[in-house]
């Protein structure tokens, strides 16, 4: 919302300075976003008189001017077509800052000729929108200060209005707030109710009890006007805040929009047949609007229509053919109250942004419909002449102000500040609230946002000043007796630092990826697509952060980084409903980025392989003590891994704890990236298997010497080593303390040899040879049975 200082002063009698006003605006919640203060901006600028203007020797469109700036003459290169001898204009000296572009003027050589300063256009000076040539000044002499010569230097203030404050979408409302803050007196304008005996056009509203889209529809006929260009004061006012002046009638409706937050519309009444009012559109009805576009309407859209046709989309935009042109003689001036929710829905559906929609959807003052109409009528009669009819009004139901029973203790309870009842009353009254002796508050019709006692608290402390709030310590009521973090959060923190300590770099990527990636899964999962993605690149929710890492590897590779180790802890999505997401720690190792590796080294490097990512997974399992009998390998792993070089680690309950492996060659070739290995750890599943009990186990010393035995077996190639290990575990021999697989070699006829070392720890007494032999016997039997292999040697 933009307005000028002088405009504000039309409604606010004040001696406050611009600074005081803008500081207070922000303090009461009308945040100042920008101030254009020409007087300050133009401090360094002076009036210059062009003494001579000659064509630039090296450029057709430039001229070299000798400019008298009072006490000296400057040579300036200028590109304006109107830089003629004798012209008075504004000269920007070296070091000055151009208000619009914030460019600092420096001595510059332009096509071999040095320019000492610049001659400025109105646009560059933020004075007007004229950018065709340099500004022309009349009553001044060379050397005068620009700010004096330019005369009317009305500062423009731009404030951000939060959606709850439609009353401040008009300058009058802003003035009221400032007056309440104590910055002056609100000038209450007397609104003359226009009396007339002329007949108007009949009006209607088709609002129903269940669908009150237009509670009041009013208007009047003004005939015999002479529409014209707006008078300068009106034109200036609108242009200063960036609106284009169209013609007096349209400008007056726009003026009311910005002055009072009251949108109006003026129809060419010659084109209205019989009556005019608000009704719902029939499906398929069309209207060509003022923005030149045709809209097809439906039964949810409120339109302004006569007995035959649609004249405009209610509260949003008028029809192109039915507006007020310069030659229009007879108009119907409409003022109505449209339901905010209705307007918001229609505006969004049709995607039309207009000043009217902006105000109606935030809520206009229902009690100002007729007053706004009167003010605008009077202005039209003043400027364009003509004869106004009486007002025709269609009212659905009477408006009732909100009433709130208020307990002033609530103010201190919420804000911690004590404010006297007298001050509370003063603030509320100045904002237009009415208060009876029991502190029952009647909310003014222009404040649809105030309906609860808490809203009254906000009003009072907003004006009283939030800077009066004092800090009050809010300490812990007791010393915490349990950790702040949940187990899940602790584990996430642990894995984050664990992976970083293994040389992986944490990445955070968008949760959405290109559909190219959701197609990657060879089995094809159902993509989870956004209805309104910001770009094609970011259209689908990722199934796993691993996808993001693979995509990220491609980008880093294109920057020349082939050997990277990255990880991300974040969501992977399985569906479009809340909760259909998993917390996954995923990692990717590429090139020579091994878990045990170094950067490219003269002693040679090996490529990262499936065992590097497996060790990433298991280092975490070890860290959180996942017992090795609580999971099994399921081979192969998930879809995006190489089926022969991957696995899922599955808990006893069937949940996937982790996956790891080489990335599927099909994905690699689709994305044109070299071989790499990755892993995913499913943190929610992990949480189900970890032992959260902190039982302190006592350490037991065994003084007896442990016995180590090596076994080697020839087993079929397709039998995993884990089957062999599991077989030993399945013997449930207490004395077995450790099992190490220390050798593998491939034999002929699809066989391989695996060798294990088994540590047997006697606990009470030394084992006799036959006892050891019996243990070995059990182990051998179990393994041979499980693997259909043969013992090679002991």
């Amino acid at each position, binding site marked *: 919302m933009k307005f000028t200082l002088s405009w504000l002063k039309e409604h606010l009698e004040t001696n406050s300075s611009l600074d005081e006003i803008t500081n207070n605006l922000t*303090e*009461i*919640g009308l*945040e100042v976003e920008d101030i254009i203060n020409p007087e300050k901006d133009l401090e360094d600028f002076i009036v210059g008189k062009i003494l001579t203007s000659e064509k630039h020797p090296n450029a057709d469109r430039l001229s070299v001017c000798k400019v008298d700036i009072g006490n000296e003459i400057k040579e300036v290169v200028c590109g304006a077509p109107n830089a003629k001898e004798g012209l008075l204009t504004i000269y920007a000296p070296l070091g000055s800052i151009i208000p619009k572009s914030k460019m600092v003027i420096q001595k510059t050589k332009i096509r071999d000729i040095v320019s000492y300063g610049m001659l400025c256009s109105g646009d560059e000076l933020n004075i007007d929108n004229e950018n065709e040539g340099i500004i022309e000044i009349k009553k001044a002499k060379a050397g005068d200060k620009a700010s004096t010569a330019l005369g009317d230097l009305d500062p423009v203030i731009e404030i951000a209005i*939060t*959606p709850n404050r439609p009353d401040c979408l008009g300058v009058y409302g802003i003035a009221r707030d400032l007056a309440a803050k104590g910055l002056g007196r609100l000038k209450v304008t007397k609104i003359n109710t226009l009396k007339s005996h002329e007949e108007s056009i009949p009006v209607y509203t088709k609002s129903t009890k269940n669908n009150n889209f237009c509670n009041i529809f009013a208007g009047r006929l003004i005939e015999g006007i002479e529409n014209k260009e707006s008078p300068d004061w009106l034109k200036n006012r609108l242009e200063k805040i960036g609106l284009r002046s169209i013609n007096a009638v349209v400008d007056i409706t726009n003026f009311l929009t910005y002055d009072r937050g009251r949108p109006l519309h003026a129809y060419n009444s010659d084109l209205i047949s019989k009556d005019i009012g608000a009704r719902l559109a029939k499906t398929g009805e069309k209207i060509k609007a003022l923005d030149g576009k045709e809209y097809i309407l439906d039964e949810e859209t409120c339109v302004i229509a006569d007995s035959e046709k649609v004249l405009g989309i209610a509260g949003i935009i008028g029809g192109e053919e039915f507006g007020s042109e310069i030659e229009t003689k007879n108009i119907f001036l409409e003022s109505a109250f449209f339901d905010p*929710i209705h307007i*918001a829905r229609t505006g*969004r559906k049709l995607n039309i942004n207009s000043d009217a929609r902006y105000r109606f*959807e*935030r809520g206009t003052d229902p009690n100002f419909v007729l007053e706004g109409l009167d003010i605008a009528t009077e202005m039209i009669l003043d400027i364009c002449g003509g004869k106004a009819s009486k007002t025709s009004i269609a009212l659905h139901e009477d408006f009732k102000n909100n009433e709130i029973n208020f307990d002033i203790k609530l103010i*201190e309870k919420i*804000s*911690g*500040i004590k404010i006297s009842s007298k001050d509370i009353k003063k603030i509320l009254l100045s904002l237009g609230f009415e208060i009876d002796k029991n502190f029952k508050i009647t909310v003014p019709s222009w404040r649809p946002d105030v309906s609860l006692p*808490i*809203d009254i*608290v*906000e009003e009072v*402390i*907003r004006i009283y000043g*939030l800077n009066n*709030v*004092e*800090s*009050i310590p*809010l300490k*812990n009521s007791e010393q915490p007796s349990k950790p*702040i973090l949940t187990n*899940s959060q602790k584990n996430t923190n642990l894995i984050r*630092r664990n992976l*970083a*300590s*293994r*040389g992986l*770099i944490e*990445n*955070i*990527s968008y*949760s*959405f990826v290109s559909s190219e990636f959701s197609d990657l899964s060879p089995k094809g999962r159902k993509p*989870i*697509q956004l*209805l309104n993605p910001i770009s094609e690149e970011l259209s689908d929710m990722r199934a796993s952060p691993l996808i*993001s890492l693979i995509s*990220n590897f491609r*980008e*880093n590779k294109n*920057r020349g*980084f082939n050997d*990277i*180790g990255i990880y991300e802890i974040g*969501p992977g999505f399985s569906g*479009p*409903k*809340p909760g259909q997401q998993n917390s996954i720690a995923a990692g990717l190792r590429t090139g020579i980025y091994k878990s*045990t*590796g*170094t950067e490219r*080294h003269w002693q040679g490097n090996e490529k990262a392989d499936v065992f590097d990512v497996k060790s990433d997974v298991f280092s975490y399992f070890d860290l959180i003590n996942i017992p090795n009998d609580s999971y099994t390998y399921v081979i192969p792993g998930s879809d995006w891994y190489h089926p022969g070089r991957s696995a899922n680690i599955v808990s006893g309950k069937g949940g996937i704890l982790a996956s790891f492996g080489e990335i599927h060659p099909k994905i690699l070739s689709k994305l044109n990236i070299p071989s790499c290995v990755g892993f995913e750890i499913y943190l929610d599943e992990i949480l189900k298997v970890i032992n959260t009990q902190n039982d302190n186990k006592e350490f037991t010393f065994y003084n007896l010497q442990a016995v180590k035995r090596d076994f080697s077996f020839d087993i079929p190639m397709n039998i995993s080593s884990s089957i062999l290990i599991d077989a030993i575990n399945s013997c449930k021999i207490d004395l077995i303390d450790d099992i190490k697989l220390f050798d593998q070699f491939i034999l002929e006829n699809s066989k391989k040899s695996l060798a294990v070392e088994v540590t047997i720890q006697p606990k009470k007494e030394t084992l006799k040879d036959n006892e050891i032999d019996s243990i070995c016997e059990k182990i051998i039997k179990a393994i041979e049975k499980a693997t259909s292999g043969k013992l090679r040697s002991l």
Partner: protein
Amino acid sequence: MENLNSIKKEILQKIKSAESDDNVEEIRIRELGKKGRITKLLSELGKLNQEERKKLGPEINDLKNKVLEEIEEKKEFFLDQTLNKKLLEEKVDVTLPVKSSQNTNGRIHPVSQVLDEITEIFGSLGYEIADGPDIETEYYNFNALNIPESHPARQMHDTFYFDEFDKDQGQSVLRTHTSPVQVRTMEEGKPPFRFISPGRTYRCDSDQTHTPMFHQIEGLSVDKETNLGHLKWTLETFLSSFFEIKNTKIQMRPSYFPFTEPSLEIDVLCDRSGPVLKIGEGSDWLEVAGAGMVHPNVLKSANIDPDIYQGFAFGFGLDRLAQLKYGIPDLRTFFSGDIRWLRHYGFSALDIPTLSRGLKK
């Protein structure tokens, strides 16, 4: 005994001029071997009378010892020579670079690091951490937070939608703020509450200061007595700890959020005069957070009686806090995954922020 002296001279001369270990060995055999000259002299001693033996015995023995000593010395000399030659051949270029583990290259993303820092501070103030889903329903993202349909504030949010509809909960959306976690967490527990909820948030917006995904952190404190004064203290305490500045000054300005009433924006004192923005000094204000007293309608959504309980809520941009604290200029780079950026701005795994060691690198 000229004879013995000349023998000694001769032998020592020979040893001295020996050119190899083999030469020395030859001398040793010739003089001290079984048939060697000195051996022979010794064996012949027996044939002499006692007086001569007494005189010659020690002399010959001295000769033998001297020769033996010289031979050994010479042998050691040749041994050293050979070894040194061999060792020189074994020379390696010790200036070659060592193998250094990649493990020190690991990094923690600044957003994670800053979250750990914030967790430390709020943890010490008794705040727990609450999590919630990224995909939300319109109900939790809007309605339960006092943003009914067609509320103009819904447009402020640039929401991402899914083609998924629940008749009670509305359409599925990507959460536009972490505030839905407030309602979900309160629904599941009983007041009083103190928690923060950090996480990914999404808005359909992209430019230099907006990315379609970013991180927010919200705080909520609900109890029978919690007012704006407590809110101010909490934010001042947090900012002082986070930026490690004594007595951080903040300014509260009225604003509007549908889920708080009154709503405020929080500015922190800063100095923009130098090339680097400094927090906590100077005379400018920098907006860092939104805050307010929880709207009674939000408490009602979570089945909490607003006549008994009240509370405050505040929200920060997590990425922005990281930017301010560690001087990271461009938000977009946070999610670019550029390995160079991550190495530069990332933290070592061992930089674990705690209140006792400090909350900076």
